[in-house]
């Protein structure tokens, strides 16, 4: 179990900056994010896009901002659980919270901050009737441990970079790899695309183009995948695994079940301190809403500063908070 003062759900720019504001007040933070890397949508969606409205930076690339934030919070030694989604918040007798992820990681914290942006990025799923029945029983949306697929038969579906990259990788590991793509060509990295065509020509993978997933079947676990080509002809492929790779899309997810007041996919907060209606739970950044809300990174930074001063009372109930400037006090590392 991880023990911390503050657990921040979401490691995007606002979640990261919150660590800095907490650190100035001597509060330790642990961050959890569903993505395998920090930075939220900045790193996931537009790492190379310039941002023009960060105070003090006439122009900064999204990933550069994330890298700078990581540097800025280093003195406060934040810890991270990445690639896991928070599923449950359980209030303890003393008012603190036990946080449990989908991988059963447990974090004990005095305060929870939801900085979840648009929610957690979850894989887009193909429209197959019985898909959910086979999730975890052969259907998986992420390659977490490639060894799972050693000497197994794997069907991958999709045409983007991740479908190409995993096809190339798994060709070395799996017994049989089939890549299904709806078009004749790939728009992913040309290098990867030509490698995939080479593997197909060498007979190392089966490449099935101009085809879609039509049906999946099995008995308790996945046994076969049926594909349909443009002339509606079907073929059935026996397989152990199906990995649909159609990108990620944000979903509010379990946050909706935590008893918070939600309006249009955002958490309603009190603008005095960005607290939710539930004691010790705050929401900052794009995930919150209040009259006049602007979904801007700079507004999230402001919210983080105000909110941490409010959270201080839960972490240090016996101490009086005195406000100090970094110009006076510097940054006192942990």
């Amino acid at each position: 179990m991880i023990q911390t003062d503050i657990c921040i759900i979401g490691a995007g720019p606002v979640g990261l900056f919150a660590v800095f504001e907490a650190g100035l007040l001597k509060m330790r933070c642990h961050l959890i994010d569903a993505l395998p890397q920090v930075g939220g949508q900045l790193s996931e969606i537009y790492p190379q896009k310039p941002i023009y409205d960060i105070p003090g930076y006439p122009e900064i690339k999204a990933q550069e901002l994330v890298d700078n934030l990581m540097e800025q919070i280093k003195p406060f030694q934040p810890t991270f659980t990445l690639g896991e989604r928070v599923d449950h918040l359980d209030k303890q007798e003393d008012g603190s919270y036990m946080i449990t992820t989908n991988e059963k990681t447990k974090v004990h914290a005095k305060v929870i901050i939801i900085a979840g942006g648009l929610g957690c990025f979850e894989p887009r799923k193909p429209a197959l009737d019985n898909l959910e029945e086979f999730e975890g029983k052969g259907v998986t949306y992420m390659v977490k441990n490639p060894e799972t697929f050693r000497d197994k038969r794997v069907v991958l579906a999709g045409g983007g970079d991740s479908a190409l990259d995993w096809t190339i990788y798994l060709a070395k590991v799996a017994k049989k790899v089939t890549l299904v793509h709806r078009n004749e060509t790939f728009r992913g990295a040309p290098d990867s695309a030509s490698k995939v065509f080479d593997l197909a020509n060498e007979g190392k993978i089966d490449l099935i183009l101009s085809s879609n997933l039509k049906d999946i079947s099995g008995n308790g676990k996945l046994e076969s995948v049926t594909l349909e080509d443009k002339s509606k002809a079907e073929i059935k492929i026996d397989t152990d695994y199906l990995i649909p790779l159609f990108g990620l899309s944000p979903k509010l997810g379990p946050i909706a079940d935590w008893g918070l007041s939600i309006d249009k996919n955002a958490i309603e907060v009190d603008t005095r301190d960005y607290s939710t209606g539930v004691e010790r739970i705050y929401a900052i950044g794009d995930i919150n809403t209040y009259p006049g809300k602007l979904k801007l990174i700079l507004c999230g930074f402001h919210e983080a500063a105000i909110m941490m001063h409010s959270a201080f009372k839960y972490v240090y109930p016996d101490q009086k908070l005195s406000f100090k400037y970094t110009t006076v006090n510097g940054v006192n590392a942990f």
Partner: protein
Amino acid sequence: MVKFTVEDQDGNRQEVEAPMDMGLSLMEVLKASDYPILATCGGMALCATCHVEILDGPSELGEATDVELDQLENLPEYYPTSRLSCQIRISDQLDGAVIKLRGEDVV
């Protein structure tokens, strides 16, 4: 102003009117009209959450650009006249067009 028809995920149709002189995108107008469109990336053609299908309109309106196809091709499903509404400028091209929302449900 230009008038066109929007069909939501449930098949309900409604006429929408939008100004042509404000440099708006179709995504922005749909959001302002309270349609459930995430537009995660804010209009950079980087997320495909503002996916629409052009059911009726001039043929150019149904032709996705390269940057749009990069996203559309990643989706589990898209259509011959699929577009990203963030890449459609409000213009007289939309006059009388019928737009079907194809973005994922917000919730």
